[in-house]
């Protein structure tokens, strides 16, 4: 059985949610939100900004799921494609670095203000 399907989902989800966390983190110190979303949208974003830490936590959980999927022991040797597995591990590591960088960036405004 290929592991790609179950690894790609959580990894993609982690990337999507980290982008969301960045939007929550940066919205309140820059004027782009009003330009992009209008006044009502910016207010909505600011009202939901409190969930940013939970969104970041969710990205970490999803990354954990991705790592578990690509590093767990295969049940059978049959169908195990080592090259594909390595490629997938690189993909998850790359995504993890990106997600963690974005997560940290999403908190930066709190400390730079």
């Amino acid at each position, binding site marked *: 059985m290929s592991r790609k*399907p179950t690894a790609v989902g959580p990894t993609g989800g982690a*990337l*999507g949610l980290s982008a969301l966390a960045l939007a929550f983190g940066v919205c309140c110190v820059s*004027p782009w939100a*009003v330009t992009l*979303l*209008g006044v009502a949208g*910016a207010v909505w974003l*600011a009202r939901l900004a409190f969930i940013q830490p939970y969104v970041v936590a969710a990205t970490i959980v999803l990354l954990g799921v991705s790592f578990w999927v690509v590093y767990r022991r295969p049940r059978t040797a049959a169908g195990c494609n080592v090259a594909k597995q390595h490629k997938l591990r690189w993909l998850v590591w790359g995504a993890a670095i990106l997600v963690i960088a974005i997560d940290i960036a999403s908190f930066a405004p709190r400390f730079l203000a």
Partner: protein
Amino acid sequence: MSNHLLPARSISVVVIALGISALILVGCGGPKAESQVNSSVHFVPLNGDDQPLRDDFNRDQGFVRLMLLVDPRCPECLRGLADTGDAVLAKLPSGARIKVYVVHEPVIGGTDKDIPAAADLLHTTLARHYWNSSGDFGRQMSQVLGLLHGSRPVYAWDVYLIYPPKAVWSDKDPPQPSFMMHQLPGLDNEKFPPWDAKVFATKVNETLAVSDQKD
């Protein structure tokens, strides 16, 4: 067989993440909201002597007065205005003796063109709007309120003040408010309570009740 297809659970995770992002980017009705902005909102520039705010403040003695310091492009400030409109002003009893002054300051790029859209969030004609293009009023209020992060002064914006009916602006600087809230990082939250619309509404109503008893 299904190796090249994503299972439904994985798809749902991606779809949820993309959906939330899409909601933020598209579904907030921003342009629609802006198109409904009441462009007739009147605002006046604030000069170096804080006029006409100072005269308005003193003329309105006998009223509970709210002073809101915001950048009209700052999402947190806009949230503060919207909360004030929804949780405080919209729920006031008719004939409540209250005045609202909103001082708009250019902190993160707000301009006077942004004031009408921001003003609409208060849903009231009780408010008077002032534009402080130099930003000096924020520095002045920072000193008045003693806003410090460690020993570093913190510029006064995203700050919400309540003045009792008897407050008079007799010195060069505005008087101390009876209560303040803010959405600024780095302030001592014991001394300067962070923004909570329900608490702010309660304090406004308490101040109104006390002033009604005295009358």
